[in-house]
């Protein structure tokens, strides 16, 4: 008997769940230029979904189409089962937090937050209560009477968030919400965002080009490149099993090797790389022809570095010379020169003080690099 699966935290795996937002082959052209190229996307209720990608890849354009500021050149957007194509921005059940915050400069913080409720003709007493609550939630009580130009960047950002949240939208769109904040405030606000998301059960779509932010925040990430989605998946899936070189390079660092399949067994494949000369034994089968050109991605932290030759096989091992060591406190980064001038990057945790480690690894020393059969990822594009 099949075990009843719990999908509450992973609605996208539930075959019966109905997506809350459906983007169906949506394109956006500006003249000859294609900013968004026929994308499909399903987002479920309560998700915190990140759109991640380099500058100019079409993230803001997609978000603006969801908010209604741009009309798709083709395709449809459904929110809660309703076709949004002819619905103007002021009638959509979504609110947007702008990259620039877009606070009304001639209104106080309180009036900025109250603006959306007033437009909805909410009774006065209720407005008073909801705005006050929201302002204390973002800890701005003492700033309620200020004008936006009297606030710091972080405070403005919280006003923008409060203004978008107070309407209790079904979907909140955030365009690089934390772009202007310093690292400490950024982490604090990321945490706040996740809290709010859990408390209110709003569906969040967050645009960012900071991969670390995307990894911390999201239930799922869509990696975008030149108007298309390269991959959609959970942070772990995207990091551990990228489906292309673009994704592997965009999320975190990866050592990339070009090679050929020389053996294709039912439970393993062997890839031979010529530059540097090396063999990769990968412990999962693939439906792929022998001799096909592939790439192997290897994350820096999945490589072991040691001065002694590892005992077992010759596959998944390579010898090299330490070229550079970067001490980062918690970890150290080694750049190891192998087979000519090919560089491999390794990060390893500093479990002991480097001086006490025995034996310490130093510049220009000969070392062995090795990794597990499950550590490398074979990519075909």
């Amino acid at each position: 008997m099949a075990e009843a699966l719990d999908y509450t935290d992973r609605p996208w795996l539930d075959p019966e769940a109905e997506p809350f937002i459906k983007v169906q082959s949506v394109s956006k052209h500006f003249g000859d230029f294609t900013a968004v190229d026929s994308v499909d996307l399903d987002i479920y209720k309560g998700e915190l979904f990140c759109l991640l990608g380099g500058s100019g890849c079409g993230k803001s354009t997609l978000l603006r189409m969801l908010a209604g500021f741009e009309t798709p050149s083709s395709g449809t957007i459904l929110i809660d089962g309703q076709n949004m194509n002819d619905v103007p921005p002021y009638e959509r059940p979504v609110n947007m937090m702008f990259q620039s915050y877009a606070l009304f400069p001639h209104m106080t913080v309180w009036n900025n937050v109250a603006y959306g409720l007033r437009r909805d003709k909410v009774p006065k007493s209720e407005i008073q209560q909801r705005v006050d609550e929201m302002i204390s939630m973002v800890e701005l009580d003492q700033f309620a009477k200020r004008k936006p130009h009297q606030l710091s960047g972080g405070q403005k950002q919280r006003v923008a968030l409060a203004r978008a949240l107070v309407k209790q939208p079904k979907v909140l769109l955030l365009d690089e919400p934390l772009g202007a904040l310093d690292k400490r405030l950024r982490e604090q606000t990321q945490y706040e965002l996740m809290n709010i998301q859990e408390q209110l059960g709003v569906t969040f779509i967050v645009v960012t080009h900071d991969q670390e932010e995307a990894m911390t925040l999201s239930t799922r990430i869509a990696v975008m490149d030149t108007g298309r989605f390269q991959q959609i998946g959970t942070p772990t899936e995207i990091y551990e099993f990228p489906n292309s070189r673009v994704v592997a390079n965009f999320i975190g660092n990866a050592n990339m090797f070009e090679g050929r399949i020389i053996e294709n067994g039912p439970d393993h494949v062997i890839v031979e790389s010529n530059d540097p000369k090396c063999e990769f034994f990968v412990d999962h089968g693939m439906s792929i022809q022998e001799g096909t050109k592939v790439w192997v991605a290897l994350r820096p932290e999945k490589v072991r570095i040691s001065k002694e030759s590892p005992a077992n096989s010759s596959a998944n091992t390579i010898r090299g010379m330490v070229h550079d060591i970067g001490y980062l406190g918690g970890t150290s980064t080694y750049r190891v020169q192998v087979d000519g001038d090919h560089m491999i990057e390794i990060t390893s945790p500093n479990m002991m003080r480097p001086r006490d480690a025995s034996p310490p690894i130093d510049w220009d020393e000969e070392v062995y690099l090795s990794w597990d059969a499950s550590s490398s990822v074979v990519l075909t594009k």
Partner: protein
Amino acid sequence: MNQKRSIFLLSTLAFGIAFLYIPMVLLIFYSFNKSKIVPIWGGFSTKWYVELFKSPEVWDALTLSLKIATVNACFATILGTLAGLALVRFGRFRGRTLFSGMISAPLVMPEVITGLSLLLLFIWLQSAIGWPSERGFSTITIAHITFSMAYVAVIIQSRLAGMAQDLEEAAQDLGAKPLRVLTDITLPLLAPGMLAGWLLSFTLSLDDLIIASFVTGPGATTLPILIYSRIRLGLRPDINALATIIILVVAIGVLVAGYIMLRQQKQRALDMQMTAEETP
């Protein structure tokens, strides 16, 4: 070296200021001249001011000019704002380039041409529909609106272009219909530009001589027309007195505007300081 430069700078400054203000000082000086013949000093007197206020002609001209300037400023501000909005915010509509070129044409058109063409229009209208039956207040006002509006449209256009569009989008996103966005967000933010446009239209109208002389009729004399027609018969001390009063009014206006702006700046600086102190 430094000494030399500062002497050079000082004398340049002095020369520049003298060049600007000597004519006005002369004007004010001679307005208190007892003698009727302008360049000859006949002792101090305020009799020309008294005479001025007793002259109904001057009063009529002044009221007419102020009436025209006020009505003109109001209409020009409204129409110019609408034109500026249409040009910047409503995207690419048909004939946008033509419209934007046409709106700024009055700025570069010689006033004689503008005046002449408007006069032609009024005469043609009169024979076609019987209006305007006589030229005067209404024709001058309409003529002034046509060119003042162009100035307002340009001011509004530049302010709108500098104003981020995302504020309007944010208001829409929060549920404001387009008309609400206009009254809640766009217009309040445009208010300083509109005020500047109003003041500019007012002064443009107040000192226009050429266009007004083209489109006016026998019954209507504006202040500039009056001054000019009197001066043609020779310099007169009572006109000097009138000009002195105008200078005084303008000077007060400039000082008040300057004071208000300075106070706003100080308040802003104070606000900023307060913020900086309170945020850790």
